[in-house]
């Protein structure tokens, strides 16, 4: 484990994300559609979505890879952040809805709401909504973690109750009475900060923002895990009771990472919603949250970069598969779960490290020059 905040892998990662943030929009805007390197318009929100997933995966890796807490409920934090953003976007619709009510979103008019519920107040103000994007998932994570870590619920028990948490939230958000649009969720957004959500320019900006958010999220997590706090976190992951006997209040260490992770997931959700144009309760589905974990496992847990890489790889694969042969996607995903846990415990990054080490070890046998370290 390297002590530097930005190690070699991290440096490459930062460079790639920065380049992508600049080159992909450039390839879309500057190159003509016939050019082999041209990025078609529809790719921009798609890639933006991958970046949001990558940020979410980084958040999951912070707690799973460094804290040993396998969350099967991070979809809940992601969706809560998404809903906070969605509520802002709904309020921006104003009188342009089907029913033309200047205050109430369409679904509320439809459900005979007389006035805006208290928890919708203030969401028309962008900074307030952005605050809620981090505060709501953060608060839920804090309360949940405060109870769970204090009573030392660990391992699979913790995983199961995180599943129960996101399942309960899904059921709740499906109810019309909750005031979040029930089944249909929030959609038909018009604009964000005055810019039309559907416009290509807005999408390019959102894509670049997602890339920056991914970088920021990575740097925050990376800084945290390389600090002395991060070393304690890893100690907790590997030998929790030993850490306790050294005098560390393990629950507080976990709680901090857990809450931060939920907040980052909330940000990812908030960036995701304007790019896909909808948020509904299915984001809370327990199976979604489990799928997110496999992104981290594919890339390599406990590396942060691997998590981001895994998220992009798996989701690109999903897009490719579902376009080509939708029947096979679940087979592929299922096989991925099995193969990664059985044969690639350290994920793609671990595999890569193994390969380069092997190449380095046998330079005499293989005269080909190995990449300079």
């Amino acid at each position, binding site marked *: *484990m390297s002590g530097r*905040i930005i190690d070699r892998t991290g440096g490459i990662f930062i460079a790639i994300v920065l380049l992508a943030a600049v080159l992909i929009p450039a390839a879309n805007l500057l190159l003509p559609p016939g050019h082999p390197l041209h990025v078609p318009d529809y790719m921009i929100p798609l890639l933006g979505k991958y970046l949001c997933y990558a940020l979410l995966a980084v958040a999951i890796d912070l707690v799973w890879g460094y804290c040993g807490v396998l969350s099967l409920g991070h979809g809940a934090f992601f969706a809560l952040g998404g809903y906070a953003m969605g509520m802002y976007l709904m309020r921006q619709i104003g009188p342009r809805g089907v029913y033309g009510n200047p205050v109430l979103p369409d679904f509320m008019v439809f459900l005979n709401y007389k006035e805006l519920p208290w928890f919708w107040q203030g969401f028309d103000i962008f900074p307030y909504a952005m605050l809620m994007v981090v505060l709501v998932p953060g608060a839920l994570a804090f309360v949940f973690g405060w109870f769970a870590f204090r009573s030392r619920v660990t391992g699979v028990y913790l995983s199961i109750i995180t599943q129960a948490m996101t399942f309960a939230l899904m059921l709740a958000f499906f109810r019309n009475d909750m005031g979040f649009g029930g089944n249909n969720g929030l959609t038909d957004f018009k604009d964000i900060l005055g810019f039309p959500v559907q416009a290509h320019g807005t999408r390019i900006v959102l894509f670049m923002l997602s890339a920056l958010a991914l970088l920021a999220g990575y740097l925050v997590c990376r*800084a*945290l895990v*390389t*600090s*002395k*706090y991060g*070393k*304690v976190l*890893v*100690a907790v992951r*590997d*030998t929790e*009771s*030993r*850490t*306790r*006997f*050294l*005098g*560390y*209040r*393990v629950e*507080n*260490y976990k*709680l*901090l990472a857990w809450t931060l992770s939920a907040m980052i997931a909330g940000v990812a959700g908030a960036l995701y919603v304007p790019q896909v144009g909808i948020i509904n309760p299915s984001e809370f589905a327990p199976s979604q949250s489990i799928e997110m974990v496999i992104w981290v496992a594919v890339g390599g847990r406990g590396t942060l970069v691997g998590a981001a890489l895994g998220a992009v790889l798996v989701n690109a694969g999903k897009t490719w598969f579902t376009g080509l042969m939708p029947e096979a996607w679940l087979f592929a995903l299922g096989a991925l779960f099995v193969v990664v846990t059985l044969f690639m415990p350290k994920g793609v990054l671990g595999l890569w490290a193994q390969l380069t080490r092997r190449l380095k070890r046998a330079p005499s046998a293989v005269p080909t020059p190995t990449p300079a370290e």
Partner: protein
Amino acid sequence: MAAPLPEGPKTYEIKSPGVLSLEAELGILSPPEVVADPMALTSALLYLDNITVSFDGFRALNALSLVIGEAEMRAIIGPNGAGKTTMMDVITGKTRPNAGTALFAGVNDLTRLGEAEIANLGIGRKFQTPTVFDMHTVEDNILLALREDRRAFRNIRWGRTPVERERIEALLERVRLKDHRHRQAAELSHGQKQWLEIGMLLAQEPRLLLVDEPAAGMTDQETADTAVLLREIAKTRAVVVVEHDMTFVRDLDVKVTVLHEGSVLAEGPLDQVSADERVIEVYLGR
């Protein structure tokens, strides 16, 4: 309290987290003044009285009473199931006794505190099987053990302070792991891990060290060295050693307590104890 309090001057600090520093241990500084605690109920550093622990009717500890003075070394022996590990668990807060009193420094009720709080009071524990942080380097293992602020937010910092560097240096020197400082703890041999754990114990600067079978898996030379180290430590702080190796216990040359079925069977110098009829019967065997 059932048992009469041991005699002695009341010379302890209030809820002291361990007054003796590593510097004192290593002769850098002289030990600081020990302040008497007017609230202390007992002058003993560790005071266990009538401790009973039962699991589903099985009494792991049965009205156990034990008193350890400041800077006293005590060896605890006893057959398997005598309750040695459970006793350590009670002292370090891992197990809550069903009945009895456990006081540290005369004022701290160990039955009410959590593991972390007890550790911060100045009680360090070394486990039977060496438990170090395998994923961390030897240096980082010591760093994590250093007596410092344990709060989460205070530890979000990078690099090491000069004081930290100095202490790590001295401790690595003492436990002879200087050459291995950058290695992952997982790569160390069993004996090296034992030493690393002892180093971590020292880094905590505890007032009371609980050491569970330190000689297990060590070579004869390492065992002898460990005995020397423990005796050295015991000059300034209390040490409780649980050990099976009789040669090792003899090397320590300290008062011995024999546990049997969760209670104290005999107490005294090793020679006296090993002559005791009952001890011979239950432990040394016939």
